[in-house]
C-alpha cells in the first residue's frame, strides 16, 4: 500500500477544489447516494437530453477527499458524453478499481484518462473503494430513475 498512490496531486486538488459542486441549472434527473458506514453523502443532478446525452451534471455532498474527488472527476469526465458512453466509462472505472484493468475508452482525452487513472490507487485500499464508487453508482441511479437511494452497503 502506498499513500502517495492514493493521495495523488490530482485527487487532492479535486478534493479541495471540486468541479461542478453545485445544483446545475435545468437538471431533469437526480439521485441521492449514501455510504452508511462512514456517512459519506452525495446528491447527483443530471440533465439528460432527449438524445440521451449528458448535457449537464453536477453534485452536492459531503465526504472524504476520495469521494469528493471522485464525484468531481466523474462529472468532469462524463459531461457532454452520450449516456451509453458514460455507462461504458463507469464500467471501465469499476473494473479498474476491482481488478486493476486498464481504461480503454476512445472518447476520453489524454487529460481525462490521466485524471481518471489517478483514482486507481484506491484499489489498494479496499475500505476506500466505496468512497470512490459512490458518486458513480448514484449517477446510474439518477439516470435510471431508481427510487431507492444508492447505497454502498447493498450486499451484491
Amino acid at each position, binding site marked *: 500500500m502506498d499513500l502517495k498512490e492514493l493521495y495523488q496531486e490530482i485527487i487532492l486538488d479535486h478534493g479541495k477544489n471540486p468541479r461542478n459542486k453545485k445544483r446545475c441549472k435545468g437538471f431533469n434527473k437526480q439521485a441521492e447516494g*449514501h455510504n*452508511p*458506514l*462512514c456517512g459519506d453523502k452525495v446528491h447527483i443532478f443530471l440533465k439528460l437530453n432527449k438524445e440521451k446525452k449528458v448535457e449537464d451534471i453536477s453534485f452536492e455532498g459531503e465526504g472524504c477527499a476520495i469521494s469528493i474527488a471522485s464525484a468531481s472527476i466523474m462529472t468532469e469526465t462524463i459531461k457532454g458524453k452520450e449516456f451509453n458512453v458514460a455507462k461504458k466509462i463507469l464500467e471501465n472505472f469499476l473494473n479498474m478499481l476491482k481488478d486493476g484493468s486498464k481504461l480503454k475508452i476512445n472518447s476520453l482525452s489524454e487529460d481525462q484518462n490521466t485524471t481518471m487513472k489517478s483514482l486507481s490507487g484506491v484499489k489498494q*485500499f*479496499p*475500505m*476506500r473503494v466505496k468512497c470512490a464508487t459512490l458518486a458513480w453508482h448514484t449517477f446510474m441511479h439518477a439516470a435510471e430513475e431508481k427510487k431507492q*437511494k444508492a*447505497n454502498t*452497503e*447493498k*450486499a*451484491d
Partner: protein
Amino acid sequence: MDIKSVKSQFPIFKNKINGKSLVYLDNANSSQKPERVIDRISKFYSKEFSNIGRSVHTLAVTATNRFEETRDLVKKYINAKSREEIIFTKNATEGMNLVASTYGEKFINKGDEILITELEHHANYVPWHFLRQKKGAVIKFAKCNDRGEVEIDEIKKLITNKTKIIGITHLSNVTGAILPVKKIVDLAQTKKIPVLVDGCQGAPHLKLDMQELGCDFYAMSCHKMYGPTGVGILYAKKQWVDQLPPYQGGGGMIEEVKKDNITFPGSPTKYEAGTLQTAEVVGFSESIRFIQDVGIKNIMQHEKEITEYGVQELKKNNSIKIIGDPKNRGSIISFTIKGIHPHDIATILDEDGVAIRAGHHCCQILHEKMGVTATARASLGVYNSKEDIDALSNAIKKCNTIFNK
C-alpha cells in the same frame, strides 16, 4: 472415508471420561469441533482481530473480509441465490424468532392460521405462540403418525385460505424422520404460502440446496455443524428480506437516523444489529471447509450405515423400545427401556463414557402424544463408528443389570 482420520481431527476424543474413551452420541444437541475450527478462532483473535465493517484500518478490513467471505461460502454451500439471503443470527432459535416476529408483524392478523407439526422443536412453536398471544392467530398442528413421520396429507388437510405460513422441521430431533420438505413446499407454493424449515438437524446431516428445496426460510445452528457456539444462519428468500421489516435495532443496521425518523438499508445489513459474532463466523468457515473436505455425501452414507447398525443392535434388546420407525431416518435413534427412566439410563451410560441425552428434547407436544415424559436419545455425527454403537449396547445392558438386580 477413513473414519479414524476424521475422528483424529477432533481434540475432544483425546480426553477420558470417567476413565473411559468418550463415546459421543449427543450430536443432535451439539457437535464437537475439529481442531481447524478451534485453531481458526485462536488465530483470528491472536492475529487478525478487530470489529468489522466500521473502521477503515487494516485489521478491520481483514476481519471484515474474512467475515464476508464466510457469507459467500455459506451462500455457495447451501446454494442460495444471493448474499442478501444469508443472515447471521445467534442460533437457529433466533432465526425462527426473527421470521415469526417480522413476518408475523407484517402478514399475520387475528384469526390467521399458522401451520406447524407435532414434531416441532419448541424453537419452531414458542415464537408462534407469542404471535398467537399478540395477534390472536391460530396455531394448527399437523399430526405425526406412528412411525414418527408427518405425512404430506396431514399438512394438506389443515391448509385453509387462512393459512399464512407453514413451519416444519427438516429432520425430527426425536424420531429422526426426514420430512418431505420439497413436496410440502411444492404444495404450499400452489397456495402461495411461505414455508419456514427448521434446519437444525437437516443442516449438519443432509445435502443442502435451497434451490432444490425451494423453501422460503431455512434456519440453522452452526454449533450443530461442527462449528462454534453463538452463531446461526437464517436463509431467507430475497423476496422476503426485501419486504419484511427489520428485527432488532442498533448500530450497523441503519441508513439514516434523524430524531423523528430512521431509514434502513437492505438485507443482510438490516437484520444484523450491533457487533456481530465475528470470531464465530470466521471460525465457522473452517467447519464448512471441514464438511466439504470429508464430503457431505460421504458423511450421509457413513451416518446412514452406522445408524442402521444402531437400530438393528438396539432392536436385539427386548427391553428397548425405539421411538418411531421412519422410512427415511436421519442419524437419530430415540428409545426407552422398560422400567428404567431415561435419566437413569443417561447417568449409567455416562459411567462408561457414553454421552447421550435424556429428556423431552424440547419436544413436549410430541412426547405428550407418545405418552411418555422423556426418552433417551443417541444421535450420531461424522466421527461415530460401529464400536460406538457397541459401547452403547453394552452400557445399556448394564442398565438392565442394575435395575433388575
